[in-house]
């Protein structure tokens, strides 16, 4: 994976600038292939949705250590997008194919992840979402969060983060949206 390591590191870094550079590289390299594949039986909007979904599945699989590095990240992403599109077509029950693809998308895991993201976006207020993303994705310190969100102190940033996260955990628990039932 050495050739790809900057892409891998960029994606999982949590640093928006690095992440954006890696995503741009993958978009330029893979999106045309994904678009061609989807357009054989779908439209432009679907091609964009599949690519966006594919990127999220890629990120999830990198976080979960599911990518073994047997191919380039770009090839892996294209396989994910093909899987997603074939799964989409199968749902219409009008698709028949003998095309054999490596199974790189865990549909149940994706379903749970998508639902929690939807819950986050619909039930948690926008500022809470941003504070939580700043802490858990960008891994900013409370001091940095205080400055970024114009809060009175690092302690109030921490209080806000705890309160927002408490609400999200309660929602996930209430809806039973937990994919991994096994403790590590």
């Amino acid at each position, binding site marked *: 994976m050495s050739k790809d390591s900057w892409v891998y590191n960029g*994606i999982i870094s*949590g640093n928006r600038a690095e*992440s*954006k550079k890696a*995503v741009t590289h993958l*978009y*330029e390299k893979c999106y*045309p*292939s994904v*678009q*061609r594949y989807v*357009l*054989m*039986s*779908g*439209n*432009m909007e679907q091609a*964009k949705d599949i*690519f*966006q979904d594919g*990127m*999220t599945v890629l990120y*999830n699989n990198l*976080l979960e250590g599911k990518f073994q590095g047997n*191919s*380039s990240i*770009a*090839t892996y992403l*294209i*396989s994910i997008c*093909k899987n997603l599109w074939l799964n989409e*077509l199968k749902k*219409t029950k*009008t*698709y*028949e194919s003998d095309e054999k693809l490596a199974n790189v998308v865990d549909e149940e895991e994706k379903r*749970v*992840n998508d639902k*929690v*993201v939807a*819950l*986050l*976006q619909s039930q948690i207020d926008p500022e809470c*979402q941003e504070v*939580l*993303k700043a802490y*858990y*994705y*960008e891994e900013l310190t409370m001091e940095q969060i205080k400055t970024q969100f114009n809060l009175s102190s690092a302690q109030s940033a921490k209080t806000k983060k705890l309160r927002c*996260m*408490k609400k999200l*955990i*309660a929602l*996930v*628990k209430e809806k039973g*949206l*937990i*994919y*991994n039932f096994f*403790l590590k």
Partner: protein
Amino acid sequence: MSLTDQDQELFEAYHHGSLSGEALTSFEERLQADKDFATSYLAYKQAVKSLKLSAFGDVVSEVMQEQPTPQSSPKNQWLKIAAAVLILITGTIAIVSLTGDEEVTFAALYRPYPNILQDRASTASTLDNALAAYQTGDYEKAAVLLEQIRQPSDTVHFYKGMSYLSQGAFDNGISSFTSIDSSNTIFTQQLNWYLAISYIGKRQPEKAIRQLEMIKAGEYNYQKAQEVLALLR
């Protein structure tokens, strides 16, 4: 039971691997004994992952909005031709509306020819590696490897052409296809079709017509060729 701030901080510490000694033992014992606490921890883990996925999704959206979408072509006769062939090619696949804003040109006509040599038994040669790359959709790598083969066979030329075509490199694709003696190859029928759609990709309808006319009844993609011809003429 409601989750306390202290519990949340314990989750974070455990998640980051910063609990140790007695604190770690005590936390793990509680996970085993207290089902509600364990469920809260799993919910915490899922919440953290979903926050990361959502934030990463924001970055992807931003990039997709900033980057140009690959070239689309004007709506003209090509749209009708490609859409009609799309129906034929996809067979039982759900068909998109022909009057919408779908981008259907060469992309709609094109479908990679399968790797017909995938089950052959041999040690991994450059050709095998190239075809493996081709099969996984890594057409760039496939083309690079196929270019390295010194005495290319018809198979090498054909899949090189397909690899270029898959990347939208029509001139290179046509050059590879025309390196094959079309009167004396197992790929004669396929060549007519893929050369025709290469010319469609290059907006050269006369050449596409000539190529499609060479496809005889019963040959590869004959019916599709007739449909395209009817629209092109």
